[in-house]
């Protein structure tokens, strides 16, 4: 009988290890960004304070997202410093005139409609409330994509158990709902889907 329990226990334990430690590594695939980008450097060196100095919301409420080359060209018309990233930016993109294909950590799927304008203007949310303080990131973040769904890992969040998550870590529908429920905001499915 003891042997039975032992063998059972071993199987049990192996399953736990596999499920919690190995599975995430198999499920998610790391992808490289076009080149390293440091929010912190920009904040310090160029005195670009506040996200909206690059990530602007238009008068009609459209969010421009990641700034296009012309914004970068404001300063990077030619190389600033010797870094490899700088060289890549200027030579491969700004000079050629094609946009870097950034992998967006908080990219929501095509069936989601999210308006930054409504959340910042009407609800008065700060960028950090949802995105965390990327502004202080001083090393490039890893971008991981779910092999099955193609979603960024940030959507589910980095802890598989979804416990103890920092803001910006985990942007599932349930996370939106949590906040909406807290503020008694009722929107139908198509309030946030398209």
């Amino acid at each position: 009988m003891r042997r039975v329990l032992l063998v059972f226990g071993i199987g049990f334990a192996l399953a736990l290890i596999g499920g919690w430690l190995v599975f995430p590594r198999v499920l998610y695939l790391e992808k490289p960004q076009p080149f390293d980008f440091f929010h912190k450097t920009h904040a310090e060196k160029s005195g670009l304070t506040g996200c909206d100095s690059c990530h602007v919301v238009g008068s009609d409420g459209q969010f421009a997202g990641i700034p296009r080359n012309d914004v970068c060209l404001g300063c990077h018309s030619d190389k600033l410093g010797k870094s490899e990233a700088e060289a890549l930016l200027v030579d491969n993109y700004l000079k050629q005139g094609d946009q870097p294909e950034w992998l967006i950590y908080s990219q929501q799927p095509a069936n989601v409609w999210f308006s930054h304008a409504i959340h910042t203007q009407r609800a008065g949310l700060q960028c950090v409330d949802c995105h965390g303080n990327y502004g202080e990131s001083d090393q490039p973040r890893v971008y991981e994509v779910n092999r099955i769904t193609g979603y960024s890992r940030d959507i589910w969040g980095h802890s598989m158990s979804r416990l103890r998550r920092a803001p910006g870590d985990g942007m599932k529908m349930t996370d939106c709902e949590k906040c909406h429920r807290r503020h008694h905001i009722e929107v139908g499915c198509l309030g946030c889907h398209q």
Partner: protein
Amino acid sequence: MKFSRRDLLIGTAGATAGIVFTPVPWKLLGDVSIWSQNWPWIPQPAHGPIETTLSACTLCAAGCGMRVRMAAGFPVGISGVANHPLTKGALCPLGYAAHQLNWHPARLLQVRHSGRASSWPEAQAALAAACAEGPIAVVDGRPGRAASLTLETFAAKRNGSYQTVLGPETQALAPYAAWSGVPASALGYDLENARTIVSFGAPLLDGWGTPGRFTRLWSARAAGQSDPQLRLIQIEPVLSHTAARAWRWVAVREGTQDALAAALARVLVEEHLVKAQGPLPEMTLEQAAVQAGLPIAEIRDLAHAMVEHGPTVVITSDGDPAVAALNVLLGAIGTPGGISLKSKVSPQHGAASTASAKFRATLLDASVPWDLIPPTQGEVFRFAAWDGGGSKADWLLPSPGFLEELTDIPTAPTSATETYTIATNLLAQPQETQTAAQFLRKIDASLADVDKSIHARCEQIFQVKLGTIYAGQTKPVSQFESAAKMEEQLRKGGVWLGESPRNATLHCTLKTWPATSAPASPTDWTSSWAPPVLPPLASKLYQESTVREAPAGRPA
């Protein structure tokens, strides 16, 4: 201790129990359903902010005002321009899906010589050779454009002939042109002032002329009123969409509309319903009635209906002179609400001359309808953006598609006032393509460049100081400080409107009652009907609903 089969079973049982307490089954279950929501083989719309620009539709000669929504550099939506003076915010059904046409499977992006792939240099050489050997014909489907000037001068320099193919609506005006000596392209209908419109089979509510112009007019003055300000009488064998909504539908027997016209003429004159004492058809009322398959009483009643609520104008679908003559009797020529003469700012063109075998080569501009095939033994160079199939042309030359070409749009057919619009190329022109004008300039660099000609036209309009520019709001040309400013407005989707029609100076005199002539598209041009290249979404109309019949189902 050795590992037995029993242990394996128990171990597996343990693992199975354990896996339930890991994310594996639950995350997989979730992710697989999410996968089913984003199947990789289903296209995803592009990201990126949306810009809206104004332009004009170039699918046909009507040049309706368009509002184009662009995302990530591609048009993603088309709508009309509200209170656009000509189209009143309306487009034809095809217009709303026109931005899909550039990806149509029939898109032409390769020079073809008698069916085989070829290249631009070869085509160029071939045309140069042809020009050297003999006179050539250059055929233009939309005269009056900046490009037309290039084509015309090229033909002139090569003592070839420049020829035009007029659209059906303009063709329908040909008889009056013949009787008044004014070119058809200078004539139009003053619909806004008409109170009774008698249409002999013209699809007035179904994409006739500039669609928005009449549909809005009809909607405001006729629809749903038992005694409408604007009476639409549709004379047509079948219950067409127009006939279905007309104030009155007269089901005339197929191909006997000239007989009905004759009958009406007799009633009008004999019963002194009109002042005119013009010539009369030989046919008696009785004979005509029998031919048209209508009781005399109804014809008489129809004649009365035509005059009791004037001004009245008769519109034909195919320029049958016998029918057109009714307008002369009704005095509907050069009068308000009738056939009228446009103000004289834009260059006017001779009636359609016809290609004949004597030309060494014939060059067809992309504006020439695909199904028109010139009767010539010589080489045919055809420009087209889409391959409609069954082409007899020796050379198929890919031209820019929708929104890929800078062009100007002169006065729309049937319009009584002159208009001028510029459609800029919102999309980059594919390098595989050339317009006829670009192609000819490769052969003769001295030819005018379209961009320059457009500039010149704007200068000209600015000089004349006639009319107004509409771009958001209306502003008289005279109030523009410079031609450049005005041109800028036009290039941003504005439209120039000329002066009101000069009616007094248009007169038609009829010596004898005209004999019927066959439908007046250039007689010796064969028209082999090929299903038009439509936006794929048009299939909603004829395949997924019963609103219309499939194009292939229409008679050749």
